[in-house]
């Protein structure tokens, strides 16, 4: 399988289809993170589309210092942040519900747990929408993108110490918002007891 850089080179050489391969490779991941950040799948698609086009037009400035996805993600996240600021005041809870209701998430799980999971996902999604923007940013980057603190600091252009404190506050806010679900979750993790989370990087 070709690596990203080969596709980039090919796209720069005029093969637009090569860029299409990159789109295909990263679109799901990008939409997942951005839709959770924006709270709307529709908006996420708009942003992702803009981000891909912008990435394409600036492709020659991609020098392979970072991974292509990191570079792309940064473009997309910046666009998403601009969009969030533009649409202030923040989406209300009702709007978040509507948004979620119109765009049901395909869980592909079996009946009972499926329903529970669906409800859980809905509530978590809404809770994310309730977070202050700066908290939602770090949560999405950390939990959904798996970024290390240093990466988050780079993307948001804030000190690592700020990343740390924002993540803490974000999680505390979420804890309060998700209180009823936590007991269930903590029971489950007791049973599953996975190994502790590995290093952030």
């Amino acid at each position, binding site marked *: 399988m070709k690596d990203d850089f080969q596709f980039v080179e090919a796209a720069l050489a005029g093969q637009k289809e090569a860029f299409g391969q990159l789109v295909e490779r990263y679109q799901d991941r990008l939409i997942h993170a951005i839709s959770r950040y924006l709270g709307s799948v529709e908006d996420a698609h708009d942003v992702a*589309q803009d981000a891909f086009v912008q990435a394409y037009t600036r492709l020659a400035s991609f020098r392979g210092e970072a991974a292509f996805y990191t570079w792309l993600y940064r473009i997309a996240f910046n666009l998403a942040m601009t969009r969030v600021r533009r649409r202030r005041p923040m989406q209300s809870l009702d709007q978040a519900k509507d948004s979620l209701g119109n765009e049901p998430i395909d869980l592909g799980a079996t009946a009972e747990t499926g329903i529970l999971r669906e409800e859980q996902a809905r509530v978590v999604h809404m809770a994310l929408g309730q977070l202050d923007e700066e908290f939602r940013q770090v949560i999405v980057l950390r939990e959904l993108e798996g970024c290390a603190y240093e990466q988050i600091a780079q993307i948001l252009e804030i000190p690592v110490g700020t990343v740390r404190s924002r993540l*803490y506050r974000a999680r505390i806010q979420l804890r309060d918002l998700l209180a009823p679900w936590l007991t269930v979750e903590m029971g489950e993790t007791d049973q599953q007891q996975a190994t502790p989370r590995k290093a952030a990087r």
Partner: protein
Amino acid sequence: MNGSPALPAIVKMADPNSLDELPDELLSAYLDDALSSEERVQVERHLLAHPEAQKQVEQLRAVSSLVRRLPPQPARADLRDAVLKRIEKQPGGTERIAKPKLMIGRSPRGWIWAGLAVAASIALMIYQERSNLNQPNSDIARRSMQGLQNRSHDLEWTNPQAGENPGNEAFDEIATAPSSANKTPTGNAKLLADEQEEERFKTYSHFQFAESAEQEEELFETASQFAQSADTPILVVHVVMPASARQNRAFENLLENEGLIDRPDLDGVRELRAANGVLTDQAARRQFGVVADDVDKKGVENQKRSLGRVSGKSADSAAGLAVTPVDPRAEGESLADGGESVEVIMVEAPEANVLSCLEKLQSDEHNFLAIEVDVPEGQLNSRHAVNRRDKTVDSQLAEDSSWIGLQQFNRGQISPSQRARQPVKRAVRSPSLAKAAKPGLQGARKLPAAQPSAAKAERKAIARSRLVGDNLVRVVFVLGTTAPRESVSTQPDLREESSGEAAQQE
């Protein structure tokens, strides 16, 4: 203690009561294994002694787990095609846009520098105009004064007494009729000509403020070359940002996102500067591989000749601007650090890109507290494109009679407190000049804010499509900073130390 990494024996034996104080956020970072080894030991001791902290860690872990288990949200099947379709429409694909086309420049003493640049641009604009009109040359200051005075009468569209097209319609008419642009003394109608297609992307200079008079002279020339161009309008955009946003380089990011700059290697700049004492434009070009020959050489030569006689001071008076701008603090502004906090970034870009950039600035009130766009008189095309958006938005600033020759652009939806922080003016016109120029522009200010009719709206759309395009515009961004505000997160930057020990632990 579920899931917590195994505690080192030494920690288990430590006196837990000695470590009651622990920043809460360490608990969260502990989950992410993002602590230094010392912090980690500290947290583990704390957890041993404080069951409630253990509980909190478990809750945070559960929160994290809930979010991570959100089901994936796949992209729609047509996303790829939609992207490719848009890419297909991009003229020239990635190559043309991706070359390092635009350099940014910055100046630690930007107010003065900006003043010089603006003054130079106006002075030169006037010089050209007067030359075109075959006026005898005397000294630039006098010509400039005359030029400004004359202009206020020359430009019919700013003068209600001249108008079959008073008010907003005047803007619309000129905008929709390219021929009327030809009437302008500066000959900006060239903007509408086709031949500039190839000249769409030019080169840009990198300026640093000089430390000696000679260097200053040299840089002044360079700045003037940038600011003045026979066929490229110039905008001066003042942007006021919170200190935190400046620190985060929000503006540079925006320019970068808009494709207006490729961010130069600032470390490289510093190094070069350290080595040479000052970074000249030429050095910057060498450093960043920008083609120096993109500038219209003939034009540059002309400018050099004319500029040879323009020192900073005479440019000042020539343009009728106080180029040592009013100290913002003296005017009760909250700009911090005076000149030191101000930067100037100059770019040249297609009008559409610049407008898009302005729109982004306008929409991001978080990072950009106030924006003013000044379009020197006579820069018709850009002026329309910019001012159209907001003639009705802010009549308050229009009352400010000290801005005679420059139109303003101001964000409409800023809060009163933001407005209070917003600098009112940054250049002061000499009283005599203000008086002379007043009649022409006052008319422009009194444009009625009528509801646009359908026909008018259509005209506007046409005008916009005509004007907002590939025409090049030069922009001097002047970045100012408000006093630093406490951000939500006041935690000091805790240094991250790589911890082999932490990574090894399960």
